[in-house]
């Protein structure tokens, strides 16, 4: 019997180029793979491509895989799927897919050129969280820098869209620009031309991405700082605005930074007097704050008092929907060209609560307490309305409603909002000298957002979190618990995570 002994590896094996594409279904990964195969075959390479299309094509994560080697000498045996640690070129058509490629071991320092588009196509799990569920791209970027032999990253999706094409063309350009395949640029472009569909747009996106891939990386953090805030209008108003901004600017720096946008928000919401009120309220908080804590309490208060004062009522929505700059912005977004028209349809669904909220506070409160009257309002007003704000009738209606600021302070809604705001601030300040706890309670105002049911659910979560805080207020780690409760409340719609956190608290108090 012959004994087998170890042999040196076939040097030709090194000539196999292994390329994987990780894409989201619908991104044109199949087209990209086809081009790559074509360019290889046209340049004297044997190539083999595979994919696992199936249902993954419906917006799921999908892998395409290509192997190629010089055709002279015979038919190489190619693998049908990428293997961990054995991929030369990894193209990720989205940032988290780049992360997935690394997770699956397809990116290694010894051999892998990673080409990734930095844009995000959010997964459903990231979008449904009531808070901010967006996955952290920075972590993936950092990992890619450590894991890949070479890392080429740009927003290839935006680049493609700018050039009237789709991401597959841009990624093909980046692949050509990376120099990771031994073919000249013209060979790549020939493959696009041969495909015969949307050739011009594809070539433009290809060229732009080619440049992006060959240009040196621009370090992050070079975006320009926002410019100064300017106000136009009647001279007396402008003068008063300047007085108010001077007051805000005189606040300690960390507070002023938040108070200026806060001031603008409340003045835009109502008027200059309301702005002065905002600064007064902020002043009350500042009076109990100190520099030792970096004015964190006042800074957070500056943010959340502004948000609480600029609540979302019918008047605000109607005002925002009828502003001139809105029409221009939408026309630009929709790429309305000369000679085109644009119709605008708004989806409104007022409820009895909104109507009652517009009534004078006392009357409104009586109406709201009467199921009979609420039923009437519901019948008269509450139904889905499609309003064409490019038309005179609907625009006029919303324009009128948006002009009711003079009436706002008398309304039931305003009274309710003021009461809620004052109770919340008093609760927060009541926890002083537990400074951190007071800050956390101020931050809980974040939970109140949305309209109708969502708003009601937010309010109820807010109440439950604050009630939970009272249970732990005596503990040293009360601030931690307040933060945990708030974060739990932002995790899901029904508040399951919050229920869990509250149950935990009850288990030890």
């Amino acid at each position, binding site marked *: 019997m012959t004994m087998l002994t170890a042999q040196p590896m076939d040097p030709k094996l090194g000539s196999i180029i292994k390329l994987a594409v990780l894409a989201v279904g619908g991104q044109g990964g199949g087209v990209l793979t086809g081009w790559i195969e074509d360019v290889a075959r046209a340049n004297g390479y044997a190539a083999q491509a595979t994919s696992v299309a199936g249902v993954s094509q419906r917006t799921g994560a999908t892998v395409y895989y290509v192997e190629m080697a010089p055709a002279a000498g015979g038919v190489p045996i190619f693998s049908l799927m990428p293997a961990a640690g054995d991929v030369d070129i990894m193209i990720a058509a989205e940032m988290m897919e780049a992360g997935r490629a690394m997770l699956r071991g397809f990116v290694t320092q010894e051999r892998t050129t990673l080409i990734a588009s930095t844009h995000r196509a959010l997964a459903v799990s990231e979008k449904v969280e009531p808070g901010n569920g967006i996955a952290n791209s920075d972590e993936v970027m950092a990992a890619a820098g450590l894991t890949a032999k070479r890392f080429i990253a740009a927003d290839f999706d935006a680049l493609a869209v700018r050039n009237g094409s789709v991401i597959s063309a841009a990624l093909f350009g980046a692949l050509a620009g990376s120099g990771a395949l031994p073919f000249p640029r013209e060979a790549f472009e020939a493959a696009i031309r041969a495909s015969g569909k949307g050739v011009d747009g594809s070539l433009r996106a290809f060229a732009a991405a080619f440049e992006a891939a060959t240009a040196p990386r621009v370090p992050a953090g070079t975006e320009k700082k926002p410019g100064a805030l300017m106000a136009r209008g009647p001279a007396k108003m402008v003068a008063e605005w300047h007085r108010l901004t001077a007051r805000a600017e005189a606040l300690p720096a960390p507070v002023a930074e938040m108070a200026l946008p806060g001031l603008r928000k409340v003045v835009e919401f109502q008027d200059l007097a309301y702005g002065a009120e905002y600064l007064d309220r902020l002043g009350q908080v500042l009076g109990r704050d100190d520099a030792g804590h970096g004015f964190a309490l006042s800074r957070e208060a500056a943010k959340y008092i502004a948000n609480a004062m600029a609540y979302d009522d019918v008047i605000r929505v109607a005002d925002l929907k009828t502003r001139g700059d809105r029409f221009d912005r939408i026309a630009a977004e*929709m790429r309305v060209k000369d000679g085109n028209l644009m119709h605008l349809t708004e989806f409104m669904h007022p409820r009895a609560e909104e109507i009652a909220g517009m009534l004078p506070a006392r009357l409104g409160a009586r109406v709201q307490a009467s199921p009979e009257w609420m039923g009437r309002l519901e019948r008269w007003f509450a139904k889905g309305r499609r309003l064409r704000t490019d038309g005179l009738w609907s625009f006029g209606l919303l324009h009128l409603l948006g002009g009711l600021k003079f009436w706002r302070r008398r309304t039931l809604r305003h009274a309710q909002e003021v009461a809620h705001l004052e109770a919340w601030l008093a609760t927060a300040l009541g926890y002083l000298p537990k400074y951190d706890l007071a800050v956390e309670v101020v931050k809980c105002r974040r939970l109140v957002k949305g309209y109708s049911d969502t708003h009601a659910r937010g309010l109820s979560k807010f109440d439950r979190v604050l009630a939970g805080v009272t249970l732990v207020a005596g503990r040293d780690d009360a601030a931690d618990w307040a933060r945990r409760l708030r974060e739990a409340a932002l995790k899901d719609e029904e508040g399951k995570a919050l229920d869990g956190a509250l149950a935990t608290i009850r288990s030890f108090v």
Partner: protein
Amino acid sequence: MAERSFKAEVEHLRLGEGDTFTGEGILAITKALLENGVGYVGGYQGAPISHLMDVLADAEELLGELGVRFEANANEAAAAAMLAASVHYPIRGAVTFKGPVGVNVASDALANLASSGVTGGALIILGEDYGEGSSIMQERSHAFAMKSQFWLLDPRPNLTSITKAVADGFELSEASNSPVMLMVRIRSCHVTGSFATKANRKPTLSVREALEAPQSDFAGVVLPPMSYAHEQDKIRNRWPAAEKFILERGLNEVFGPKEAPVGLVIQGGMYNGVIRALQRLGLADIYGASQVPIYVLNVTYPLIASEFLDFCQGKEQVLVVEEGQPEFIEQTLATYLYRAGSTVKLCGKDILPMAGEYTGQVLLAGITDFLRKSAPGLLPAPVRAPNQDRPKVPDLSRVVPIRPPGFCVGCPERPIFAAMKLVQKETGKLQITADIGCHLFGSLPPFEVGGATMGYGLGPAANAAFDGGGARRPISIIGDGGFWHNGLSSSFGNMAFNKSDSVAVIVDNYYSAATGGQDVMSSRAENATKATKHPIRKALRGIGIDWVRQIDRTYDVGHMRDVLREALTTDKPGPKVIVASSECMLNKQRREKPLAQAAIREGRRVEAPRFGVDEEICTGDHACMRLSGCPSLGLKVLDDPLRDDPVASIDQACVGCGNCGEVADAAVLCPSFYRADVVHNPTPFEARFAAFRARVIGWLQARRARRHLVFEVAS
């Protein structure tokens, strides 16, 4: 019309003697069928062989020229039953479907076919949907071959081997009077490559000619006592004939040195992966020349004892590489060794994993492990004693979100599930079953509607236990594909006959959409060779279901919700069926987008809708996301220090389906959404009127702006 057109590729099917075909596996298989004189073809779509059906449909002209009959069968059972033509007639027939689910459906016909035996070659091309990218339960079709006795081919995954297997399959079938199943895995179906073609051949006897001289023989009928004779015939005659053919024609292959202490026994489909593992170990060159003997089973059923024992001669250990479970092949080979009194050690699932796909990593690890134990001298030093510090890779598993498939942009099924979620907010959680098809994505977040799926066309049948009613009626969901596959009889026949007090929602998107947009009976499209435009509600009426509500615009979420509510509360007895119809957006866009673009170019009036979100009005509560999940509805982080949470944002991919606005309205979410309809080439009157309105509106806006402070950020 199917999602992907193969009209251009179909021309490759006309290649002649000595030409070279370059393209996808599926297309190569079709070409091989024509080269081998197939007389009739059929099947039922499903990944990974959907495209085979699409290719056949697009090749109908060529098939007609050759006298080949093509049927887009109603389901896999119908496809398998079609092979009955090969029982009495010397006509080659081929059908295709996915496995193992398609084989499950077809198994009645397949078992009868296998019992009767065949005269003409009968080939089942089976797309084995196993491993990454699969959409079904993870099982093997292998068991069906064993229980009914048809032969199973699992060729090496390259176009030459796969097309050769088509020819071998027909001949093996005829030589052994048994049906043959040609199994191709997901990647083999889509693998690209080349093979040398032969001229297409007309069938020696066409199905049309066969009808001139009908034949029958009661010996072929599965009834006692013939059925007993069939069983004996399978074992006494057909099996030995198959073995003889496989041996004589050398269908299985042996590679590598003749003599060695170890060897590999592998399924043909595993060949490339095994070679890659050997290449990485320095044990095979780029062309696959291996230093380890490999016995490649291009036929995985039956296994030939003599051939296997020959291969084992002189070896100490062999490793069986067999994907999936149970390990049928390994068990049989172990029996062969034991009966022969052999001392060869058989390894397999003790080293390789019992369950799951054999990926490159799995094969490399398994083969390395096997060789380390059985022939350590063979392995290069670093593999024998790994001494390598891998750089620490940051753990991204907590960062990267899962991304299961979901509804496409503008999908008409999304609003149906939004409405169901809204109804459940009123009623509380309902008992809901689902079927097979795109609508099954409704069971995933954000909707999470529907728990169980029991198979294609079985959604309402899966609720049968609850047919008697209770506190709240159960709901079942089924697609139009499932309805015509066998839902009409198995689900709706069952409901009607048992006077079911439950609700069924038929998601009618005009196609068998999940499998690639093939036409079904109720498709609205003109189809030259198929009967379309048969409304589902008429079929329901025909079997005595009277409470039927037809919805022709699923995007009307409020209406959808109201109808669901009505179905749940009406006191009418019997089944309550809602037919929710709107065209699959993927197909609609593919058809209408080029038309709209052409119209704009030609100066005709076109309205292009798209949705948008007013950032300042959106509070970032994401309530809309929980009723949508549309890929074009995403989040945007605002450059505003006062905002904590990202707001909703709609990208360019939006097709203006209307779900966002409808949901915001029906669920009373928020007024952030707007629809912008860009009117291309407006009429002169329209343009003048719009200009007038814009002047009035502009005047009002300017008037208000003059009286208030207007803020802007200097750039």
